[in-house]
């Protein structure tokens, strides 16, 4: 594409600007009020990424001056309505845009106050990542809990807690750790896979775009780096094929007499030409003959592509039907339970009737029961509630007049969500997330990471009993270092020693991982982050089973290693980081696979140590630097017994 456009642009054209091959989209939601420093934070992200224009800045400077503010009020940038500027508050969601060479960002800037919960839910519904601000002086307050709970309920996969105003607590490490403990304790009860805490000062710029020099004790990345590198592609459901038919294309001309295409946006899974599919609710079967995408015919389609699917057989398919795989279907149901956020003054009551719009199907619905109302800080449930009022969130049971093809929201944010519309006023009155389907769950449950509703099943056999009965003690030892630094050699030697002494130990090697579990990943920064995450998750499970897991993985970025540690810490498992600190000259001299040579010759790119950075651990549990293999093994075993 870029080359094509550049031919038109001539020799001095900005060809690079058109090269958007490595640029994806991250949607983030922020919640909070001016007092939290939310606007200052957004203002700084926009300003430092040059997304604020000179005339906009001049304008808000002038308005601030005229109002007699002692500072430039960056909130004026996002608070776009007259009423918001007059009252100095955010009422409705505002959307802001900025881009770095790695990513394009859409910020849904939402109000923080409880009475605008519905607006927060609106902004959160499409977000990949949520930023919650905590004032370092005040710590975790009611409002922070509510924001985190809403992020969790809406299944935003990544939560970043920015502990702001660190400058006002003397950049105290102890204060940050207190807040981190509070957040972790609270987050453990939420269903958020990835929680990251960053100590910042939005006003002074600490750890927003640039790493702060005031907090050398903080080893993680600044906020913008985290936003640029967090891996979001894996959050989509690529397992369950779900294609809600939106529009039937039938050209009325002779050239396309027999053309019949089903247009829609892929809601889950990967559709491929030749796949056998089932059309629901009718249950008729056919095969995909062809898929037309925005750029022409394609072999496969995945979320969020808008495509047109042609089937081999002439079937009766219309808007509102869902195309799925024969052995992996959504539930076809007329009753289900859902979490609902209520968005209007007139309360939701048992027996009330509404319209449900779910994917491309709109049906009549009746509230069979209000199961409970949830206290918005997430702490408690009120089972005796029979109504939901404006900004309430609760669980309700709905029955609908004709079948819907639903998944649980935990499994698919598109086929698990719906809106409620009041037929009398045409207003959107509620946002719903399917929690459970009557008559059993979906026929196939393949995705353990997002398994619906069920809290992790602890089973009767807990870790203590398991380890006690087997006489084992699981842990993970994480070997990081440059390619050819000797990680695998040392890990193998440790493994052999442990097994010889009767301790179950198992080595997970970065290269081997690439052949199986991570066979679908490339070598970009995102893919590396994902590879590390997968290794960490697998290691955690094996460690929990009682095995000493020896992971040997270059894992060049500190943020990814920190997350691996967090994954273990979250499950109270020992994690020993071993930095195999071999100088690059020595690694290059060894180079058993000739990879350094290839990287230097430019035959491969993105090679750690040559044209991609390695961030050494600041405080590894063990540092191996020039020891013999035997000495290294002893150091690792000593650290392991201390852990």
């Amino acid at each position, binding site marked *: 594409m870029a080359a094509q456009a550049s031919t038109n642009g001539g020799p001095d054209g900005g060809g690079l600007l058109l090269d958007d091959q490595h640029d*994806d989209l991250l949607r983030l939601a922020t919640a909070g009020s001016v007092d939290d420093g939310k606007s200052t934070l957004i203002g700084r992200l926009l300003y430092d990424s040059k997304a604020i224009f000179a005339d906009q800045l001049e304008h808000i400077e002038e308005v601030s001056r005229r109002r007699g503010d002692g500072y430039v009020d960056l909130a004026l940038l996002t608070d776009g309505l007259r009423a918001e500027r007059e009252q100095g508050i955010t009422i409705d969601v505002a959307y*802001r845009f900025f881009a770095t060479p790695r990513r394009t960002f859409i910020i849904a800037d939402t109000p923080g106050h409880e009475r605008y919960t519905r607006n927060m839910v609106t902004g959160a519904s499409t977000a990949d990542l949520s930023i919650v601000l905590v004032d370092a002086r005040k710590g975790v307050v009611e409002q922070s809990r509510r924001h985190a709970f809403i992020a969790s309920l809406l299944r935003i996969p990544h939560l970043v807690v920015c502990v702001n105003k660190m400058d006002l607590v003397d950049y105290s490490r102890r204060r940050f750790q207190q807040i981190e403990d509070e957040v972790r304790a609270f987050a453990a009860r939420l269903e958020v896979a990835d929680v990251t805490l960053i100590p910042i000062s939005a006003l002074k710029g600490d750890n927003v775009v640039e790493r702060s020099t005031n907090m050398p004790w903080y080893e993680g990345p600044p906020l913008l780096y985290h936003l640029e590198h967090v891996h979001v592609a894996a959050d989509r459901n690529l397992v369950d094929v779900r294609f809600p038919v939106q529009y039937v294309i039938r*050209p009325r001309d002779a050239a396309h007499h027999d053309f019949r295409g089903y247009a829609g946006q892929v809601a889950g899974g990967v559709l491929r030409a030749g796949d056998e599919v089932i059309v629901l609710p009718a249950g008729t079967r056919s095969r995909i003959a062809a898929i037309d995408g925005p750029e022409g015919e394609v072999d496969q389609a995945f979320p969020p*592509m808008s495509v047109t699917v042609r089937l081999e057989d002439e079937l009766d398919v219309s808007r509102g039907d869902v195309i799925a795989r024969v052995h992996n279907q959504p539930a076809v149901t007329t009753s289900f339970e859902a979490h609902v956020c209520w968005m209007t003054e007139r309360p939701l009551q048992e027996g009330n009737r509404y319209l449900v719009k779910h994917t491309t199907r709109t049906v009549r619905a009746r509230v069979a029961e209000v199961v409970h109302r949830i206290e918005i800080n997430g702490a408690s449930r009120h089972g005796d509630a029979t109504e939901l009022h404006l900004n309430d969130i609760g669980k309700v049971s709905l029955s609908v007049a004709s079948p819907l093809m639903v998944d649980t929201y935990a499994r698919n944010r598109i086929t698990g969500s719906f*809106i409620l519309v009041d037929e009398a006023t045409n207003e959107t009155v509620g946002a719903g997330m399917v929690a459970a389907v009557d008559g059993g769950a979906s026929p196939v449950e393949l995705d353990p990471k997002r398994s619906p509703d069920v809290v992790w099943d602890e089973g009767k056999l807990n870790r203590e009993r398991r380890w006690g009965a087997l006489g084992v003690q699981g842990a993970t030892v994480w070997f990081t270092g440059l390619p050819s630094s000797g990680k695998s050699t040392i890990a193998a030697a440790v493994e052999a020693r442990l097994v010889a002494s009767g301790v179950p130990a198992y080595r997970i090697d970065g290269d081997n991982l690439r052949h199986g579990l991570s066979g679908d990943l490339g070598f970009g920064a995102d893919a590396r982050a994902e590879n590390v995450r997968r290794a960490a998750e697998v290691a955690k499970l094996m460690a929990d089973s009682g095995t000493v897991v020896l992971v040997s993985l270059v894992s060049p970025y500190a943020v990814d290693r920190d997350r691996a540690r967090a994954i273990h810490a979250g499950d109270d498992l020992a994690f020993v980081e071993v930095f195999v600190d071999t100088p690059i000259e020595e690694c290059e001299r060894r180079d058993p696979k000739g990879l350094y040579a290839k990287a230097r010759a430019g035959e491969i790119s993105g090679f750690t140590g040559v044209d991609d950075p390695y961030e050494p651990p600041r405080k590894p549990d063990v540092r191996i630097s020039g020891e013999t293999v035997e000495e290294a093994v002893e150091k690792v075993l000593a650290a392991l017994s201390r852990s």
Partner: protein
Amino acid sequence: MNYELTHLRTLESEAIHVIREVAAEREHPVLLFSGGKDSIVLLHLAHKAFRPARIPFPVMHVDTGHNFPEVIEFRDRRVEELGVDLIVASVQESIDRGRVVEETGPRASRNRLQTVTLLDAIAEHGFDAAFGGARRDEERARAKERVMSFRDEHGQWDPKAQRPELWNLYNGRIRRGEHVRVFPLSNWTELDVWRYIAVEQLEVPSIYFAHARQVFRRDGMLYAVSPYVELVEGEQPFEASVRYRTVGDMSCTGAVESSARTLDTVVAEIAATRITERGETRADDRVSEAAMEDRKREGYF
């Protein structure tokens, strides 16, 4: 295969989803087409949404009569190529029929009069949905706008009572006489629009590229010398190499000095600019701090 879309392709698919949704749920949509860059992209996306069938709704141009001739020529040709019906709603006719009163003086503009012409045409043709090319990054009132935005029977926007918009579920239900405005490019930025035009190799009117033109300076902006603008004392026409960042009424659209004659160089200029398109080229937004919010409340684009 990593199953990832670039951000431009993500925006493209989302916009197509919105366009199809409206075509499926509303009976009489119309696409507002001015011949400007945003509506060019919008029309192209509508074409992609329904091909190989034709676009199942007409396009409409609200014509102030004060147009750049290059744009009108382009408009007619593009509509012809796609085989869609073009409706021209004329501000001059609204003036002749006494629906609006022409402003007078050197700063007279037909910009605000367009609202009446637009609402009259929507009512006359019975349209229940109107696609527009407006983007949230253009202006701060627009940053608050929904993708599918409700208008009451008077065509008015009430920014404090907007329908919540969740996931990709749009509520376009209305009563008779009301309509929805639909903005499929809501999440696109000016740079996205240009990059998309470059990637898709879309034709745009020649005034978007640098050309020699007789201009004069007013309030720090360069305006084209045309029969629609009176010069006041001290304003001297001169020739300059300029291009347009936005296309509107000749009386209120400013040009920027530029030597960019290709899509690539235009993209490079837009990527480097430090001033917003409306701040640099639109007199209509300089009336007051809430100029756009006020016009939008009345039913403006």
